[in-house]
């Protein structure tokens, strides 16, 4: 009986073990595989990431100078981050909401000396 009373008091005073979700969100751990982003500034369109990506989520076009990611296919394995020779794909710990939108990175032409003739762009389609 006394034992029970102890429990009753403990449970009345204790805060819930759960989080009030939309208001309080848990921060992911630093190494979490959340989503990837490509920084189109340094990409050389070598297609390495496209070849290694297990679910074929990346399509790289050398002619059009585009890099398209289908986040719906991407399993966030991090293989592309490992293989990119220029390290221009980065893994971020936060999850991206489910989407059918594809992310297209376009890098404009440059004049070969690092000066960009067209601006780069990130488009979601």
């Amino acid at each position: 009986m006394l034992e029970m009373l102890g429990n009753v008091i403990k449970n009345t005073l204790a805060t819930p073990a759960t989080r009030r979700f939309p208001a309080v969100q848990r921060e992911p751990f630093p190494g979490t595989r959340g989503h990837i982003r490509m920084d189109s500034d340094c990409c050389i369109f070598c297609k390495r990431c496209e070849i290694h990506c297990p679910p074929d989520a990346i399509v790289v076009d050398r002619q059009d100078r585009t890099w398209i990611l289908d986040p719906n296919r991407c399993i966030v394995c991090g293989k592309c981050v490992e293989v990119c020779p220029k390290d221009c794909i980065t893994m971020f710990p936060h999850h991206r909401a489910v989407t059918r939108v594809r992310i297209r990175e376009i890098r404009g032409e440059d004049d070969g000396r690092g000066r960009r003739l067209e601006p780069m762009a990130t488009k979601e389609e």
Partner: protein
Amino acid sequence: MRQRTVIPFGPQHPVFPEPLQLKLHLEEERVIEAIPVLGYVHRGLEKLAEQKDFVQNVFLIERLCGICSFMHALCYCQGIESLIGLQVPDRARFLRTIWAELARLHSHHLWLGLLADALGFESLFMQVFRNREIIMDVIEATTGGRMIFCSCLIGGVRRDIPNDLLKETIARLDQAEKLLDQIAPVILAEYTVKERTANLGIVTKEQARKLGAVGPVARASGIAMDMRTLGYAAYGDLDFAPIVEEAGDCYARIVVRVKEMYQSFDLIKQAAKRMPKGEHALPIKRLLPDGETVVRVEQPRGELMYYIRANGSKKLERVRVRTPTYANIPPLLHMLTGAQLANVAAVAVLSIDPCISCVER
């Protein structure tokens, strides 16, 4: 003659996390015959594995099952490593062991929670899942994913656990073990649980052998079969013995799994203590698998077997996956025969810890 009814049990049922249908032939309340209907989650992964190259396959294979994803990757990587003749570094072996045991822990927690829920023991279900959350956090902190670890790689592991993180991990696991100390006596000593599960779905040692039971189902029937004693990864360097119960009923299977949770905590601690220094992965540049092999590891649910055949190119010829639930379906059918309908879901089916996406691949 008494009338026979056929009840389609599943594919949607509150106690099943996954779609499995059992056609139950009933005579009044007793099950006379049970026939499984499979195929609700058949995805043709074995076929797909022939189309991707063998490195990409690691990621594919890992997604074969949500709960024991690491074990699948581990088994597959060990197979490929034996085919290309690669010896993984010592540190990788120990890290693999730690993650394998973490996977076992969270799988057994999930199962215990589901069982408590199926027994109508809701508060225990919540307690178990709170405990499981600690383990999931540990997994996320060390691998970067909660369910899909993505940390096994051909030639080693993808990321190291630095020593300070390892210490923190052990501290958190100690906390989880203490919480389990509160929960375990409830499930083991509570007479309602015992009344509900003891003497139910008995599989004797002889029958378990004949029906090819594996894992906790076999061990609860007195067969000391544990693939970890093969000594893969770092298990050869750690001290443990398979946990065996003699009764062969549902209660014995609960006892085996609860004891295995404690064993996992112990194995992780042992592995952390003996963790060698050094690198955690070897490059596999220009090595291609050739030949065929059979590898086995112990999953939370039992023996997992891979048959891999390669032909010296990047693509594999055949990957055959035999998962533990596949082997445990015949014992399940045996348990169901003669059971009361009310016991089918809660007790009999859950006591083999079914994983249907594994079975159908």
